[in-house]
């Protein structure tokens, strides 16, 4: 969906759903999703619809992902680190009444 204008000198590698991806240092996780070819980050709790980053400035909370095992992280506010494991989040299981 998105492409990079430049070849970057300093890069690092993360995984998104266990697929390795090389990115420039300083990128956010949301930028990684946009450049990955599949910008979907999670399924919504209510309808199970796919969501992708929307505002990229920490306001909309649509870009929630799991990072290194911790769910519901704002992908647009987290900078990638070498070896970071990012996972798209499935629809949460409904809570029994």
């Amino acid at each position, binding site marked *: *969906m998105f492409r990079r204008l430049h070849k970057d000198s300093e890069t690092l590698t993360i995984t998104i759903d266990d697929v390795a991806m090389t990115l420039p240092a300083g990128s956010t996780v949301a*930028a990684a999703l946009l450049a990955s070819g599949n*910008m979907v980050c999670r399924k919504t709790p209510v309808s199970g619809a*796919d969501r992708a980053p929307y505002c990229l400035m920490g*306001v909309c909370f649509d870009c929630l992902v799991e990072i290194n095992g911790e769910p519901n992280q704002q992908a647009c506010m987290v900078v990638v680190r070498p070896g970071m494991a990012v996972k798209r989040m499935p629809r949460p299981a409904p809570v029994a009444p």
Partner: protein
Amino acid sequence: MSEPIDLAIIGAGPAGMAAAALAAGHGLDVVVYDENQAPGGQIYRGFEAVAADRAADLDFLGDSYRAGLAIAHAFRASRARYQPSTSVWLIQKDRTIGISHAGRARMVEARRILIATGAMERPVPIPGWTLPGVMTVGAAQTALKAAGLVPRGPVVLGGKGPLLYQLAAQYLGAGVTIAAILETGARPLAALPHLVQAWWRTDYLEKGLALLRQIKNAGVTIIKNVSGLRAIGDGKLDAVEYRCGGTVQRIAAPLLLLHEGVIANVQLTMAIPAAHRWDEAQRCWHPVVDEYGDTDLEGIAVAGDGAGIGGAEAAASMGRLAALAAVHALGKISDGEFREIGYDLQRERRRYLAGRPFLDALYPPPAVAAALADDTLVCRCEEVSAGEIRRAVALGCTGPNQTKSFTRAGMGPCQGRMCGLTVAEVIADRLDRPMAEVGYYRIRPPIKPLTVGELAGLE
């Protein structure tokens, strides 16, 4: 808790950076808390990375972006302490601040607080706006500034306002194909009466006209007076539909970028709470502040777009004014110096603001409620439609806090940031009451996500 900070500043956009440099220059102990990883705010986002690694991008990022570099460098050269990737989740009236950094929360105290949390884009729902492939113009610009990312395929821009045309020009400079600009009702005639005052900002007007010329000369399709924007797709955006001159048209596109102007981000000021007023011209809530940014709360000020939309230059001026007031209140300058420097800064700020009524009238906020179909989602988090809000009003809800309990709109992770104004607009429209009376969500801390572990770890 350690010794209070002289001046705690929240946000490192133009207002926060300019304030920090001035206050630190006058000998105050200044700490700037910024939830981003580098200074610049939204408008000057990524300026250090761009200057260091992607200097060629400055050609198309434009003069206003370059102008920010001076403010930013002065901030970096100052003695103000900068705390990046640090969110502020609480401010109390006694000027205790709750911060969170790297998974650890703590409380700090400040003699003065300056809130410089800026603006956000006005969320205006259209059918399908939650589909992957629909983003905001500001988001696309952030991706461009911070990461040098541009869309692969053709892109449609929908809405109006200076930022939309700025991004279009930047995209043309970066070689991106713009399928169309769908302009939702600019009002040149309504803006005419404000033109005389805006003449003080001929630089602004010239810049705007040059942008529009550049876009036209590039042969971009601009369709004016568009309504009924609709994002179409199953699981992702495939096409954009719109109405113009009585007919419905469709453009295939993988990416739609929406923009309907910007509003003050009042989440933090509302949570304290400081007093707010409804601004009819900009159709959003603003904290009540005096000419130095002081709120009704002792020692707590707001500067920049968070106090009312005025643009980056006016924000920097107001940041300096608020910093000056803090410097004066803490006894670092005399009454005479305060008046003298303050007078100059006020004049500068008035000049920067002169073009604003023109822009407000040229790109008026849309009549949100009237155009909103019952099945369009207003609350993205809890997936609540306009129809559900209307049904709750029919049941007797008179304000957004009631519809929140009835429908869950505003109860999701964004804490109402995305739906607050829309929900209130729908209620105001249904009850035929002014927005000032309908009110807003009661915003409660923590206004940023915090783990229970962080809370438990507080001293």
